[in-house]
């Protein structure tokens, strides 16, 4: 339930600039979609919000990403705390090769929760919120790999919910899923947006139009336009945006 204020964000990989002077304010709650052609920097952008780009050697970052007024790249920031408040769901479902239960319980455990009863509650609550509980409640001890792709992705969402984040980032969460599984994830997103600030990267414009309250269009590392989804898709201000959403580019 936090807003994200991005201020003059620039990111380089080696000497190649991936993001250029990004400034935008993502208000709290609701769904904000990031669209744009491949290589436009949308994944780099979303990964800078929970500092996942830190893992990439030779990645340079200038500028500010503020959550509730605090700069995530400030000098005395504990990056694990940042990631605890800002959950992430990845492009391909990436459950741990452990049981369904252990997948969810892992994060609360490493953040210090040891009590079995409390863990059980967290597992059930997270799975319920990810609309997976009814499908897996009888086989929590089975391997997560036995689930279907869509179920695995919902498990990954449940896993992210288990640390009680304020913000959840989705990096093209449906690109490896079939249409039915995609629809379920989209329903879930619509539920989650009342409680969490949701940011989703998608290469699927229809998906952005379906689920997002606001949409940002990135092109060549720059933020071209950011507006309410209906406005951006119906009356874009920028010519590039119009070209992209009408399919004449990208």
């Amino acid at each position, binding site marked *: 339930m936090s807003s994200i204020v991005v201020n003059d964000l620039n990111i380089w990989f080696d000497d190649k600039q991936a993001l250029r002077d990004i400034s935008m304010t993502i208000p709290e709650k609701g769904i904000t979609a990031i669209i744009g052609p491949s290589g436009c920097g949308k994944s780099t952008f979303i990964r800078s919000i929970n500092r996942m780009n830190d893992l990439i050697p030779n990645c340079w970052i200038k500028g500010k990403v503020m959550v509730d007024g605090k700069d995530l790249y400030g000098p005395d920031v504990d990056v694990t705390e940042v*990631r605890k408040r800002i959950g992430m769901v*990845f492009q391909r479902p990436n459950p741990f*090769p452990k049981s369904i239960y252990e997948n969810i319980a892992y994060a609360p455990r490493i953040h210090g929760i040891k009590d079995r009863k409390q863990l059980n509650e967290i597992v059930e609550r997270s799975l319920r919120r990810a609309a997976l509980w009814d499908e897996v409640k009888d086989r929590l001890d089975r391997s997560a*790999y036995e689930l279907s792709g869509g179920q695995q992705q919902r498990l990954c969402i449940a896993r992210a919910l288990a640390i009680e984040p304020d913000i959840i980032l989705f990096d093209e969460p449906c690109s490896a899923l079939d249409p039915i599984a995609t629809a379920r994830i989209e329903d879930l997103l619509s539920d989650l947006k009342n409680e969490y600030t949701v940011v989703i990267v998608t290469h699927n414009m229809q998906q952005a139009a379906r689920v997002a309250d606001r949409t940002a269009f990135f092109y060549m590392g720059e933020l071209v336009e950011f507006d309410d989804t209906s406005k951006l898709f119906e009356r874009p201000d920028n010519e590039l945006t119009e070209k992209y959403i009408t399919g004449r580019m990208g």
Partner: protein
Amino acid sequence: MSIFSRNARERIYFTMFRLCGGLVVLTLLMIVSYMIAGSLPVLDLSFLTEPPRGANTRGGILTPMIGTIHLMAIVFVFAVPVGVLTSVYLSEYQRKGWTSWFWNMIISNLAGVPSIVYGLLGLALFVGFIGLGRSLLASGLTLGILALPIVISASREAIAAVPRSVREASIALGATKWQTIWHHVLPYALPGILTGVILAMSRAAGETAPILLTGAAFYMSSMPDSLFSQFMALPYHIYAVATQTMAGMNGSPMVYGSALVLLALVIGMNLFAIIVRKRYQERYRW
């Protein structure tokens, strides 16, 4: 145009390949059957449970077998933590660049150092400088160093095989790098690491030169009583019986018997490694 048709050539090549493959299998079968045939007269339980007697001319191989098992234990205790932690450092913490290139070179060259050179190192370092004397510990540590590069390269491969997506999943949940390594990378890499460890140990079990210089005894009437006493070991025992006894020089079954036991030990360990790898491979499929 060739004098043979394409099909005929195909058959000729495949026959050739099959023969080469067959040769390899045949070699192992020949070694094993030769050992078994040669050792038949001494093969019974007492061969394993009795110490050698009469300056290696009679009796069994209990003392050298115990020595080799002790050596393996020391190698395990030394090479596993050092090797695994080194490979964790190299694959997870070391920055890419010329230093990692340098490390890679050191380790791959270390694997190519002749075992007698390790023996000399052990003699100078453990026996002499550190003052362990000619002992189980000095030999075990020397073999441990010899086993290190094998453990390290196997562990690095196993660690590198853990997909990035799993590490990212853990990091994105607010885990520290070490928590990610401890809870995910190491457990998933364990089968590969274990395989490397077992291979390294079976290699060390068969080495003669390093222990010859650092503590293996030609003949002992008693078991080693501490880490600092000398010991007998199977590879050196084979050498000793084969070259220093009249019977041995005439092809005594005792030589073959000892060799067969050593072979069984090493092949058994390799089989165990294969089974472990197979079982875990099914568990962690990405």
